C-alpha cells in the first residue's frame, strides 16, 4: 500500500517519489505515444506503424514523408498539446476549487472562448487565425470575470463554481444570440468550431501551444507543492508557510491560459478537462492534485478520442469533440451520482 520511496544523495538533497504515480505517468505517456503513432498511420492512405516510426526518424519514402510530417504529425501534436493543456488546466481548477465540478467545462471558460470565436466568425468573418485569437481573448476575459466576481477575501471553492456556472449561463445566451444573427455559411463554420475538431490543424497551431506549455508547465509544477498543501484548507496551508493567495493567483492564471489557448487551437473539446484529473487520480490512488498524471491522461484521452472519431464510424468522420462529449457526459453523470452518494453535493 505504501508506495513512496525517498531518494537521497549524500549532499543532503532528497526527492520523494510515489512509485505507483510514476508508473501510471509512464504508462499513460506510452499510451499517448502509441495512440499517436496509430493515429498518424490512420487515414485515406493507411501507413503501418513501423513505416510511421521509420518516417518519423527520417527514413521513410518521400510520399510517406509528406503525409506524415506535413499532414498528420502536426494534427497529432496539436491533439497531444491540447489534451495535455486541458488535462493540466482541469487538474488545477479542480484542485483550487477543491471540487471535481470546478473544471473549466462547468465554469464557462469553454463558452467564453466560444463567444470570442463566434464574435470573430459572425461579426467579422475573420480568418482561422483571427478566430483563434478571438477564442483566446474570450477565454481570458471570462476567466478574469469569474475571478473578479468570485473574489472575496480569497477565492473559495463553492463560490468559484457557482459564479462560474452563472457566467457560463450568461455567455451561452450570448453565443445563442450570435448564432441566430449569423448567415448560414458562418453558422455552419461556427457549429463545427463549437464541437471541437482537430481537422486541418498544421504547424502554425503547434508552435504557439508548444511555447506556452514550455513556459507554463514548469511554472505550474514549481508551485505544485504549495497547491498540495492547499488541499487541507487555506488556514492549514498558510500556517505551514504557503503564500496561499499568490500561489492561487499564479496557478489560476496559468490554468486559464492553458485552457483558453487549447480551446483556441481545437475548439471547446468537451469534458477532457473534467475527466482527466479524476481518471488520473483513480489510477494513481494518491491524494494531491496529480498534475503530471492528469496532463498525460489528457493527452492520451484526446489522441485516442481523435482516432475513434476518425475510425469508429466508417467513412463519416466525426469532430473529436463529439466523442469526448459522449464519453465525458456519461462520466459526468456517474460522477454526479457517486458524489451525491458520498454526500458532497
Amino acid at each position: 500500500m505504501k508506495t513512496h520511496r525517498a531518494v537521497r544523495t549524500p549532499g543532503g538533497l532528497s526527492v520523494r517519489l510515489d512509485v505507483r504515480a510514476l508508473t501510471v505517468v509512464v504508462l499513460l505517456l506510452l499510451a499517448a505515444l502509441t495512440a499517436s503513432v496509430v493515429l498518424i498511420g490512420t487515414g485515406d492512405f493507411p501507413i503501418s506503424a513501423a513505416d510511421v516510426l521509420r518516417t518519423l526518424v527520417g527514413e521513410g519514402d518521400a510520399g510517406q514523408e509528406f503525409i506524415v510530417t506535413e499532414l498528420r504529425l502536426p494534427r497529432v501534436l496539436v491533439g497531444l498539446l491540447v489534451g495535455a493543456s486541458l488535462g493540466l488546466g482541469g487538474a488545477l481548477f479542480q484542485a483550487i476549487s477543491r471540487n471535481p465540478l470546478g473544471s473549466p467545462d462547468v465554469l464557462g471558460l469553454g463558452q467564453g472562448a466560444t463567444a470570442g470565436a463566434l464574435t470573430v466568425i459572425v461579426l467579422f468573418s475573420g480568418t482561422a487565425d483571427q478566430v483563434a485569437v478571438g477564442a483566446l481573448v474570450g477565454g481570458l476575459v471570462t476567466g478574469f470575470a469569474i475571478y473578479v466576481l468570485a473574489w472575496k477575501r480569497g477565492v473559495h471553492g463553492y463560490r468559484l463554481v457557482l459564479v462560474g456556472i452563472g457566467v457560463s449561463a450568461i455567455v451561452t445566451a450570448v453565443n445563442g444570440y450570435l448564432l441566430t444573427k449569423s448567415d448560414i455559411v458562418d453558422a455552419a463554420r461556427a457549429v463545427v468550431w463549437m464541437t471541437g475538431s482537430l481537422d486541418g490543424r498544421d504547424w502554425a497551431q503547434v508552435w504557439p501551444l508548444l511555447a506556452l506549455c514550455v513556459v507554463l508547465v514548469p511554472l505550474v509544477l514549481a508551485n505544485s507543492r504549495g497547491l498540495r498543501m492547499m488541499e487541507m484548507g487555506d488556514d492549514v496551508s498558510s500556517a505551514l508557510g504557503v503564500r496561499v493567495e499568490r500561489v492561487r493567483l499564479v496557478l489560476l492564471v496559468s490554468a486559464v491560459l492553458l485552457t483558453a489557448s487549447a480551446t483556441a487551437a481545437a475548439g471547446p473539446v468537451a469534458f477532457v478537462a473534467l475527466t482527466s484529473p479524476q481518471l488520473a487520480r483513480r489510477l494513481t490512488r494518491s491524494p494531491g492534485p496529480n498534475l503530471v498524471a492528469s496532463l498525460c491522461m489528457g493527452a492520451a484521452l484526446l489522441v485516442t478520442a481523435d482516432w475513434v472519431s476518425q475510425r469508429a464510424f466508417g467513412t463519416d468522420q466525426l469532430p473529436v469533440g463529439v466523442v469526448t462529449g459522449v464519453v465525458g457526459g456519461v462520466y459526468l453523470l456517474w460522477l454526479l451520482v457517486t458524489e451525491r452518494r458520498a454526500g458532497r453535493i
Partner: protein
Amino acid sequence: MSAGTEKDRSGKNSASSGLDDRRSTVNRLSAENVTLAYDQRVIAEQLSVEIPDNSFTVIVGPNACGKSTLLRALSRMLKPSEGRVLLDGQVIQSMPAKKVARTLGLLPQSSIAPDGITVADLVGRGRYPHQGILRQWSAEDERVVRESMTQTGVAELAERYVDELSGGQRQRVWIAMALAQQTPLLLLDEPTTYLDIQHQIDVLDLCADLHEEQGRTLVAVLHDLNHAARYATHLIALRGGKVVAQGAPKDIVTAGLVEEVFGLRCQVIDDPETGTPLIVPAARRARAAAGDRDAARKAVATGAS
C-alpha cells in the same frame, strides 16, 4: 531551553538599555494595540496581549468576544488594520512565510483531510516549511514524523486512512501534523470542540505534556472555563474585544470575574483533584432570585433619580 536563554537575554536588554521598544521583545509573541476587523466589522480595538514564553496560555471569553480572531491575528491569518503583532521582535507580516511557519504553528478549526490520505502522509505534510524542491524528504523529516506520531499516540494508525478514524483520533493526527512542524510556539483554535469528554481531556493532557516535557509555548482558545482553569498556566479573559483579566488561573478566577466576563452567577471552589479554581454555576432558582433583586434595585435607583 533556547527559549529560556532568549528570555534572559532580552530581559537584560530591557533592563540595561531602558528603551521602551525593547519591552516588546521580552516575550517572543505579542500583539500591540491591534485593531482587528473583518471588512468593516470591528471585533477588537486597541488590544494588547503578551504571550509569556514557555506558558500554556488559554484564551477564554463568551461567544463573539474575539478570542478566535485574536488567535488568527497572532498567527498572521488576519492582518490587524492597526497596530502590530510581533514575533521575536519583528512584525509578523513582514517575515518570510516559511520562516514564521518554522517558529509558530497553528491548528485551525477548519481543516480538510484530503481524500484517501494516510495518517503518515498527513503528518508528513507538517514538514513543508522545512522542505524545498531539492530537499523533499530528508531522513530528518522521516524521524520527526515518526516522533510526532508516537508523541500523539497515533503511530499504530500510520498506514490507516484519515477518513476512517474517529473524531478524537483525527484531532490527534492534526496535532501530530502541527508537531511535525517543530515550532517552539503552537497555537490551537478550540482543539476540543466536537469531541466527547474523554477525548477532550485526552487532547488537553497531550497539550499539557507538550508544554511541560518539551517546553513549547502553547496558546489555545477553549470554550470550557473549567478546562481552562485546570490546564492553563496563564489565562487571558476577553469580553467585547477587551482583556478583562490575565494571569495565573488561581490568581484571577473569581466569582466576580466570571460574572463580569460571562454574565453568569457562580461559586468558585477548589478543584478537588488539582486545587485549581472550579466554577460551579449558581442553581437556576438562585440566579432567578438574584435577577429579581437586581431588577428591584435598579427600579429603586431609577425611581430615586
